[in-house]
Each structure stands twice: as C-alpha cells, then as structure tokens.
C-alpha cells in the first residue's frame, strides 16, 4: 500500500496537563524560573514570563521563585466526560497513535488503586499489658541482615557460636535504601544516598550501574547489585561492601530488563559501568546464565566463593503471583536474604503497560512470602526485605508487621532530596538534579544538604516506629516482624485480609 500524504496535516497535539501561573503583581521578572525550568515550560516574552507549554509540575519554579508568585495549576479536564473512557486512557491512545511506540513512564504505578496499607489498622496496648514510652525506656530497632543459623549447637553443655559461617550486617533501623543506579540518578544524588546510609548506619543499594571509585569510602554500607547486564562488576565492587544482591526483577517492571540510553552514558557512566562511551546500556530481561533455579544457585555460589563467604548474598525479585514458592526456592538456592519488590515500586523508566498492570501489591507479597517460608520451616533462616511504594513510617510499620524484616525505600529518599514525583525520570531532564546526567542540572543538588535531609527523614521515621512499638507494648522491632495479630483489616474486600492472614476489624485476639 502506497502512502498518500494527507492533504491537511492534523497534529493531534495533546492538551496541556499543568500550567504555571504567574502572579504578575508580585513577579520581579528575575527570570530565574525561566533559566531553571529544564522542561522549558516557561519563557520570557514581551517583558514578562509566560508559560510555553510542557509543564510537568516538577515544582522547581515554585521552589526557586524569590517572590513566591508562581502556582502550578492542573488544567481542568479537556476531554468530554466519559465514565469508561477516562482522560488517561484517551491520552495514552492519542500518544501511542502518534508515536507508534511502547509508552514509557517512570516512578511507581500512578493509577488510583488504593494501597492495601491504607486498609490496615495497628493495635495498641491497653490495661492488660502496659505501653512503653520510648523516651523513658529502651525500645530497640537494631536489625540484622543475612542468613541465620536456625539454632545454636551445643556440645557438652557449651553453646557453640560459629559467627564466621553466617556473615550478617548490623543496621540501626529496619530500613535500607533500594537499588538506584548511577546513570538512572546523578553522581550527587547517589552520593547523598550513600552518605545518608553511612550516617544512619543502614545499607544502601548500589543499583546495577557499578560503583564509582569516589564511593568506595562508603563501601561498608553498600549492597552491590549484580544484575543481568553485569555492569561494573570487578573485585572492588564485590569486596569490602556490606552485601551482594543478585537482581532478578524489579517491582515496577517484573520480567523486564533495563535500558540506559546512550546519550546518558557519559564518560563517568561509561567508566563506572565499564561499557563504551555513548552506547546504550542494555540489561537483558533474564540473566542469560540463569534460566532456572539451579542456575541461580550456581551464581549465588560463585558470588559467595569470590567474596570468600564473608558477605551475605541476596536475591531481589519482583512480587509476582507465585512469589511465595519462588522465595522458598531462593532460600533453598542459598540466598542469605531476599528482597521482594512490590508493583508500586519506583523506576527510572519502564513500559507503562508493565508498570501499571504486572505484579503484586507488596503487602500481599510480604504476607505470602512470610507464610510460605514459615510453612516450610525456612523463615528463621533468612532476612526478608520488602519495598515498593513505602510512603511513610506507617507503611513501613505495617510492612514489618506483615512479615518483612527490613523495609526498602527509594522514592521517599529521593523526595527527601527534592524529587516531586513528576514521573519524568525517563527523560533525563530532572530539574532537581536527581534523575539526570546533565552537568548543569546535577550541579543543582548539593549532596551534603540532600544527605542531611534524608537522614532527618528516616531518623524521624525510626522515632515514629519506636512510638508505635511502645504503644503496642513491644520493646524490640523483631517482635513486630510478622506479628500479624497486631494488624486488622478494614478495607472493602475481606478476601484480601484472609489471603494476608490478617483479621478483620472487630475481631479480637487469638
């Protein structure tokens, strides 16, 4: 079929979603907003600043305006109302009909499905047991990550401790930063995460992009990720770090690999990832040496062997429907810890169809993994980490009570640095200097200030954790992990409660 050029070209331009609105009574015409807007959504024309389209509501202009005269207004619906054909669905169709491509997005799934976390209520102590004030009495949040022996051996009345057999990492709170690679975020952003992890005495994931030599100083708080692309894996990457983690999948894109476009592969990225300058960094969907569980067992042994059994080796999987059985396979394959990433987890770029439609909510996944590992008598051997959409200390506490030993956070750490969750990471234009490799943009992020903000946030979360533990009459966090008796479900679907083995509100003890 021969293409006939359209007689009149119709550019199906989509209506704007946000408009920066300037109060001209207050504007000093300093043009800082124009200069700072990496999306070029503002321009200076005829002696004043005017919107020029493409605003993503990243909020940079609001934050830097010295006159506080900018307000970002969502554009009211521009489509004829329809109960089934939402604006979102029509926008997607129009965009896809124009580009013909797979729609990309970033950050966690943004559809309005409510989080199950919001349907869970916490318990507190009254009368029959006393609550504890964490400011007066010790309430402990120390958490260990790694394999546990299950029991201690006794010879001749003497308890034998073989601490060399099972390397463990001690952390001051049941929290870790997820894997965000150098490449998906900037040098300064990753530096801030590592500095904060060190200061908080927790662990931060390296992401799959290797480890910049400047960051070796934080190695004892870094969990090195071995992903399917094997970027940047060299002796320094594996030795001296806190732990090694094999990435099988990511909650935002289960079954998917990774793609860092060539234009982001700068000299620094190319050196750190050990790939040629300017080439696309493609992580295959599966590890091409792992097509089955026994292959994973081999890679785990290889990593343990090469790190001389001094590091815990973990495996990260996306929460998928059969997550319980898979988790049990991971433990049997030798994983010392496992990380379950729920479908609301963040990403720097993912196909929208996968991000929004594949996987399992982390709440259900944690409960399923905890139950399965318990049934198989393996739960007291491994550390279970879980994340994907943890927005608050309340989510963290509920994840612990559902059965996670350690809660993984990423987006909330980035929000602490400045991210406004505008979901444009995949474009590399982050105006906050976080998800970008453009030097002028990354220079906007001061790693010291960003680290301080992250530290303050998570210290506060940890204080809130202690408050809740104390209110429940629990004085150490390990007594909350998997303690689903202290949760009740109040949502619309009691089947979810049943699957999670959480009682409904109104039901008592037992």
């Amino acid at each position, binding site marked *: 079929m021969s293409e006939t050029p359209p007689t009149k070209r119709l550019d199906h331009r989509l209506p704007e979603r946000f408009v920066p609105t300037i109060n001209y009574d207050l504007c000093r015409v300093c043009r800082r907003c124009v200069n700072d807007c990496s999306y070029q959504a503002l321009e200076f024309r005829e002696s004043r600043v005017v919107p020029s389209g493409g605003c993503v509501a990243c909020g940079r202009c609001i934050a830097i305006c010295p006159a506080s005269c900018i307000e970002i207004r969502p554009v009211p619906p521009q489509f004829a109302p329809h109960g089934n054909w939402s604006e979102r669905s029509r926008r997607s169709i129009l965009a896809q009909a124009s580009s013909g491509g797979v729609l990309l997005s970033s950050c966690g799934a943004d559809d309005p499905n409510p989080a199950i976390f919001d349907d869970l209520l916490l318990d507190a102590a009254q009368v029959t047991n*006393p609550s504890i004030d964490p400011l007066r*009495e010790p309430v402990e949040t120390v958490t260990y990550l790694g394999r546990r022996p299950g029991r*201690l051996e006794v010879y001749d009345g003497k308890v034998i401790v073989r601490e060399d057999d099972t390397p463990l990492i001690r952390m001051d709170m049941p929290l870790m930063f997820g894997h965000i690679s150098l490449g998906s975020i900037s040098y300064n952003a990753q530096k801030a995460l590592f500095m904060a992890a060190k200061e908080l005495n927790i662990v931060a994931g390296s992401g799959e992009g290797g480890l910049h030599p400047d960051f070796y100083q934080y190695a004892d708080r870094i969990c090195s990720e071995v992903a399917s692309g094997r970027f940047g894996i060299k002796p320094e990457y594996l030795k001296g770090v806190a732990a090694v983690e094999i990435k099988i999948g990511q909650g935002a894109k289960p079954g998917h690999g990774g793609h860092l476009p060539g234009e982001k592969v700068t000299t620094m990225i190319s050196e750190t990832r050990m790939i040629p300058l300017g080439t696309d960094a493609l992580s295959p969907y599966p590890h091409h040496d792992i097509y089955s569980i026994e292959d994973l067992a081999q890679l785990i042994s290889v990593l343990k062997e090469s790190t001389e059994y001094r590091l815990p080796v973990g495996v990260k999987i996306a929460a998928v429907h059969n997550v319980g059985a898979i988790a049990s396979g991971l433990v049997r394959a030798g994983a010392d810890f496992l990380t379950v990433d729920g479908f609301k987890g963040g990403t720097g770029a993912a196909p929208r169809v996968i991000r929004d439609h594949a996987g399992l909510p982390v709440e259900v996944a944690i409960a399923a993994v905890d139950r399965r590992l318990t049934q198989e008598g393996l*739960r*007291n051997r491994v550390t279970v980490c879980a994340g994907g959409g943890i927005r608050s200390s309340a989510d963290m506490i509920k994840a612990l009570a559902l059965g996670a030993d350690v809660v993984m956070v990423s987006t909330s750490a980035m929000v602490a640095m400045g991210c406004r969750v505008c979901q444009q990471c995949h474009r590399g234009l982050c105006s906050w200097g976080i998800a970008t490799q453009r030097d002028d943009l990354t220079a906007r992020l001061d790693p010291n200030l960003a680290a301080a903000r992250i530290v303050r946030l998570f210290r506060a979360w940890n204080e809130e954790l202690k408050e809740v533990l104390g209110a429940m009459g*629990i004085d150490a966090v390990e*007594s909350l992990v*998997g303690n*689903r008796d202290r949760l009740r479900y109040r949502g619309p679907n009691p089947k979810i409660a049943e699957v999670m083995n959480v009682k409904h509100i109104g039901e008592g003890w*037992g």
Partner: protein
Amino acid sequence: MNDRTDREGRADRLGRPVRAENYTASRPPGWQGQPGGCGIASCISLKGGRIGGDRISRMLTIMEERENGLGAGYACYGLFPERRDQYCLQFFFDDEEGKRDVENFLDGRLDIAHDEKVFIQESSTIAPPYPLVWRYFADVPENREWRGERGLGEEDYLVELVQHINEKIPKAFCVSSGKDMAVFKGNGYSYEIADLYDLGRYSGTMWLSHSRFPTNSPAWWAGAHPLSLLDWGVCHNGEITSYGVNRKLVEMNGYRCTVLTDTEVVTYLWDLLVRRNQLPVEVAAFAMAPSTFQEISLLPAAERRLAEWLRITYKEAFLNGPFSIIVGRSRPDISLIALADRKKLRPMIAGLSPDEDVVYCASEESAIRIVEPDARTWAPGAGNPLIAVAGKGLVRRGTEPSFQGVSV
C-alpha cells in the same frame, strides 16, 4: 442488691453470677485466646523432700485479688515415686466416647501399664458438669511408628501422639503427659480446684500453681494453667505482645497450637529450646528475655558473642511484653525455673525457707509468708532466671549478672 442467689452461690465482685460455660475437654466454638492477669505460686524442696498439696493451695488462694473464678490449676512433680519412669498421661474427657476414642487411638501405640480415675470430689461449688479426669501410666514401645516415621525418639513420639489427640480427637484433651508429674486444673477459683481434686491427698517434691483473671469468658477447663507438654509445666502471668512471632517459631518446628494462648506457645518454646535444641536452661531463659543490644555490648567478649548470636538466632523466641512465668520439669532432675520479662513488668518474688530446703516463687510475698513466715525473700531481676533443682540446690537466684555460670 447484689444477686448472690445463683444456683451455686458464686458471684464476682459486681455480684454477677459466675457461671462456668461447661467447656471441659472440648474447645469452645470460636475460641480465641484471651489476655488477663494472674497469680502464680510455686515451691520446691531442694533436698527432694515431699511437700503436701495443702501448702501450695494456701499459697495460691491467699492472692485472692488475682483471680475471678474463671480458672486455676496446680502441677505436682515427684508425684509418682513408684511409677517415676512411666509417662503419666492425664486427660479431660467430656464423656465416655472421648475416653473410648483416645483408648482406641493409644491401643498399640503406647503400652499402658495402669490406668485410673483421678479423684474428684462428688460435690463442689463449681458448676457442673465436670470432665471425667483419667490418668494412664504408659511406656513407649521399642518399635514405634508415627506416620511412616520409625526413627522418632521416645519424647518426640509422645509429643506427636499428644498433639494429635488434642487437635483431632473430639471430647478429649491431654492436660499433662510427663514422667513423675501431673496437672490438676479446671474452671473455678483456686480453692475450688484444690477442693475438687482434694489436693491434700497428694504430695510431691515440687508444686506449680496458677489462678486466673481473664478479661472475658468463656473459660475452658483445658485452657486453664499450668499448660503442659511432656514434663514441662508452665504457669504464666502476662500477655505476650509478640505472640504471633513466637507462634511462628513453634509451628515451624512442628508444634500444633491447640489451646491458642500465649502460655501454650511458651511451653513449646521451652521444649524446643531446652529439650530439642539442648540449650542450657539459663541460656534458653536469656533467649526468651534477652538483654538489650546496648547491655550486650558491655559484656566481656565471649559472653557478648554468645548473647548477640543467641538473640539473632532465636529472635522469634524472644517473649516481648509483660510476663512472669514459673516453669517446671521432672527430667533430668526436678527443677523450678522462674523468669520475668526483661523490663519486669509483672511481679515475681522468691523466698527460701530458714532451713534452706524449700524455695518459693510467687506473684506476691503474701503467698510465701502464709506458709513460711520467716522465709528470706528477694526479687529476681528483670530477664534474670531463678533456677532451683532438687538434689542440687538453688543454682541461680535470679540476681546474678547475665550469663554468669554459663560456659562460653
């Protein structure tokens, strides 16, 4: 006017009639565990002498504010000197049918040497019906098999049988299954239970006892304390806030929770840690009531390593929340273990008779003074076990530094 004209004349402090709900061996439908306060008392003769049942019932009943008539019980150790090497399985049966089913089940699985009805007074202020209480003295046969498994040790085999009965056989509940010991409990005030079983007719080297103040009814005969498995007997005053976590550990190790109370889980934890994992008793106590990591960091190196790994390995055995427990066992020696939680949020006081023969532990000093006015008393520390062993003496007072006496 308070209505005290109830059929049995029993009333609580509000004057409401206290009625037993008639759940004896069978678990009440929809039964869920229930928190509550309790009184506990115990005594042991260090020289292995015999203590009469009237002594322990006086100790327990004096603490009358700690109970509300919904459950009390006693356990006696060193009870059957003539049959000390046979397991004594003591049952509640709702009726003859439950008894028949249990006997059919045990037929061929245990060698029953002797069985007898446990004495029950004909009349009592406790609302009837009472369960039929029966005991069997049994040996475990050499060639035993449970679900195709032949290599089971005697005790593991017995645990399987008892748990099977309690889980699967209706109208029957095995309340104790240890050697040289038995449990006497039920749904009434402490003095009523003592009268019902006529405890004065028994004497033993050690007694444990417990009275309840549950926060809601119904009460259940088999749910009263002491909870027992093999020779372990546990009386517990408290509410374990980590129940869900602890339950996971015991279930992972094959225990099946049938009573659905935290005390049951505590009983299984002792069995798991001490009998199966062979931890020394005091080490098991430190696993259940561990020091804080801050305190652990101050210990000498070898002890620090043990304390840290104990806590990491057995974090699911950590009993959080307020509790004080007294634990008994008859093997290898008749021993009393008393332990309070690591903040000591429930009371526990210990005493020693002037002749240094009898050690007492109780919730209140009154319980000790009523039977031993001149006892020397002291308070065991938070998370610090008291251990008294017949024939060996007071091994630990509960005031020593952590891990003292533990070989590391």
